[in-house]
């Protein structure tokens, strides 16, 4: 806002003092938090993750700048917001194939130039179509990063050009087809839930030696190793989820820094529901309950989404109860998609579906106001 008439008294609306939090500051804090997570991912993925982060951020900022030139007043320059978006795209990009840590090589998915091209494409499409154009519609209905990745890597190209799909969505047969054991003879089935098979798949996701089938707490696979690979550092899936403990620590620090401005209820109910639902499924299908719970709780995609994507303010419900329903629904949907569709990065599909319920959930749980209870 320019000061238009320097010699007249200014007319402004009350209040004449304001809180310290602005949209830009919120974005700045989030950006710094994401930068820390990107930095931690270096330990798992090396420079690949840093380069991918830089590319998506630069593409997002560039697209935002270009759009601001074209759209003028309708799409004002919002560099900080674009940067955050770009970094979320990078952090939610599936870089690592589920693989044993003992192999000591980190397989990159698409490999070559593609692993940089895809994030750039997701970033550009996401910003232009789903961030700016959705913004013009008055409100955002789906998380731009999630829908963009889903469309580009998942649905859009899947039937036509399957070679473009990163390996964790198609190549890993065991993950893709969990329910039909007989159709894939010779491959260890992901589900049904025999402890050994489930554990085996899990350990291929989380490291340890694939040749040694997992026995919980056995001498080959002591508990500390399992916990280390799940919580501290892992290779599967999203860059942002490389270290669950980093995501949780940075996430909680960010929530505390932006008290009341980030919808923490979603994250909390998501985590609680995940635990409860995993335990329930453990009783239904058998298998190691603790392992199953840890798997669903700390999988790279899930934990990152719970803290940084599910709390995106624009696409989530406004009321407390709406947020709680959203978090619970997201947890159940994520597990169902992962287990029954075998879509290991399925958290984004669950997120997009839940996002679409936000306008309805906004109307749920309208509190009775003061003096009307």
């Amino acid at each position, binding site marked *: *806002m320019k*000061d238009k008439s*320097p*010699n*007249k*008294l*200014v*007319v*402004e*609306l*009350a*209040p*004449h*003092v*304001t*809180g310290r*939090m*602005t*949209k830009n*500051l*919120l974005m700045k804090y989030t950006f710094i938090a994401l930068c820390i997570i990107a930095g931690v991912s270096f330990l798992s993925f090396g420079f690949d993750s840093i380069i991918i982060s830089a590319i998506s951020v630069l593409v997002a900022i560039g697209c935002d700048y270009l759009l601001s030139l074209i759209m003028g007043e309708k799409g*004002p320059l919002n560099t900080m917001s674009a940067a955050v978006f770009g970094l979320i795209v990078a952090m939610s990009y599936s870089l690592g194939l589920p693989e044993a840590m003992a192999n000591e090589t980190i397989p990159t998915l698409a490999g070559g130039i593609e692993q940089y091209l895809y994030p750039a494409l997701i970033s550009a499409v996401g910003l232009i179509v789903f961030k700016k154009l959705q*913004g013009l519609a008055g*409100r955002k209905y789906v998380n731009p990063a999630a829908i963009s990745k889903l469309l580009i890597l998942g649905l859009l190209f899947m039937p036509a050009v399957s070679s473009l799909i990163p390996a964790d969505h198609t190549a890993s047969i065991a993950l893709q087809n969990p329910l039909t054991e007989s159709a894939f003879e010779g491959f260890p089935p992901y589900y049904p839930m025999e402890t050994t098979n489930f554990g085996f798949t899990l350990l291929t996701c989380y490291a340890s030696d694939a040749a040694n089938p997992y026995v919980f707490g056995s001498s080959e696979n002591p508990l500390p190793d399992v916990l280390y690979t799940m919580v501290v550092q892992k290779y599967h899936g999203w860059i942002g989820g490389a270290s669950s403990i980093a995501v949780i620590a940075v996430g909680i620090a960010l929530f505390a820094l932006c008290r*009341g*401005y*980030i*919808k923490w209820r979603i994250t909390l109910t998501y985590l609680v529901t995940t635990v409860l639902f995993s335990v329930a499924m453990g009783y239904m299908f058998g298998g190691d309950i603790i392992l199953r719970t840890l798997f669903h709780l700390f999988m790279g995609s899930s934990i990152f989404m719970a803290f940084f994507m599910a709390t995106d*303010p*624009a696409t*989530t419900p*406004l*009321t*407390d109860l709406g*947020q709680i329903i959203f978090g619970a629904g997201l947890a159940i949907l994520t597990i169902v998609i992962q287990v029954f569709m075998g879509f290991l990065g399925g958290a984004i599909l669950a997120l997009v579906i839940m996002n679409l319920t936000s306008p309805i959930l*906004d109307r749920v749980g*309208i*509190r*009775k*106001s*003061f*003096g*009307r*209870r």
Partner: protein
Amino acid sequence: MTVKIKERKEKERKVPIEVFPDPKTAVILTLQHSGAKNTPLVSVGDKVSIGQKIGNSDKKVNAPIHSPISGEVKQISNANSLCYEDVCTLPADFGEAIIIENDGKKRKDKSLVSISESELESISNDILIGRIREAGIIGMGGAGFPTHIKLSPPSAYPIKFLVVNACESEVFDTSDERLLIEKTTNILKGVKVMRKILGSPEVIIAVKENKFEAVERVKEVFSGEQIRIEARSFSYAQGDASLLQKALFGWEVPAGKRSYTMGVVVHNVATINAVANAIFKGEPLISRVTTFTGDIDEPKNLLVKIGTPIGSIFDHYKINQGDIRKVVSGGAMMGNTITSLGAPVTKKTSSIIVYYKSNYKLGKKKTACIRCSKCISACPLNLHPVLIYEALEKEDLKSAKRLNSEDCFGCRICSYVCPSGIPLAHTILSGNL
């Protein structure tokens, strides 16, 4: 979640009340309270004296106005065009302005009878309430509701509690705090008048515990008077009568109902001070304490005549008017900006806040709502500001009403916390008009 709002009173609360000299001209607005407008009783050329009633109305919800100085009526004109031109803040109507030129003779009008403290018990309530009305006393905490009406609740509702509201949670404001420190005995007298009128209810004085000096003085003077002193860390929003009751008694006044239905009457300390002045000194409400603060070097608490043009305060303290960018009257959270320094101090001007050009930054830039839901968790009334705002933007008044938009009392917390700088409170309040 209770929103903490920085009080910024460190300097202000230490400054004793200073009597500001009578202005050369006084500008008296005919509508300074909430209720019916006053009709001027004087015309141009009339001589008036200090305390003379110059505006009145036969409507029930009304408080008359008085001349703060002796002199001659020079002009009677529309107040909005005179000093509130282009004001887009609320309220939009200030009625007329009666402009009086001071003749310096200090003639006093004696029509308001005073009594001594010993006579209080022998005088009927009707007479006391009549005198409070004649003195033009209104709620000086900001609401501006005529006091005599609050003191005569329907007989079906016996009053059990008289709450003295000394929370003064508005940012910068310390006028009430200084009154508590310096006029403690006078306030006690006013409390006694009110207690008599309301049929001896229990008296509770609610004061923020961080007003250390005031709390100490109150304890010193009020102890032994069967007055309960509640010194607590009340939040900003708890300065409101309904929310204060919730804090003190735990109940919620039903929406749309007045406090007396719960057997409670809440009065501001400044109002009580004015009642004591009216009853025991025969002095109508022609002056008030206001905090003069903001970017100026030395903030002041001024006992200033109502009708004093704000510009004359700048003149008196030799503040360069060319350097002033914004002036807020009546509190940083709830007050309005004035467009002209000719705008006067009114009965509700609890503070005058000055912003210099050199320090001035325009407020948060308004951007699209990010739906963070902070306003919803912040609203002390449990309203849903963003949903009401969206409804009003679509001119969907029905939805706004369903969301109880008319319950909003304008604390502005939603606007305060909004990271997108959306004028939520202003939109909701405008929608309620």
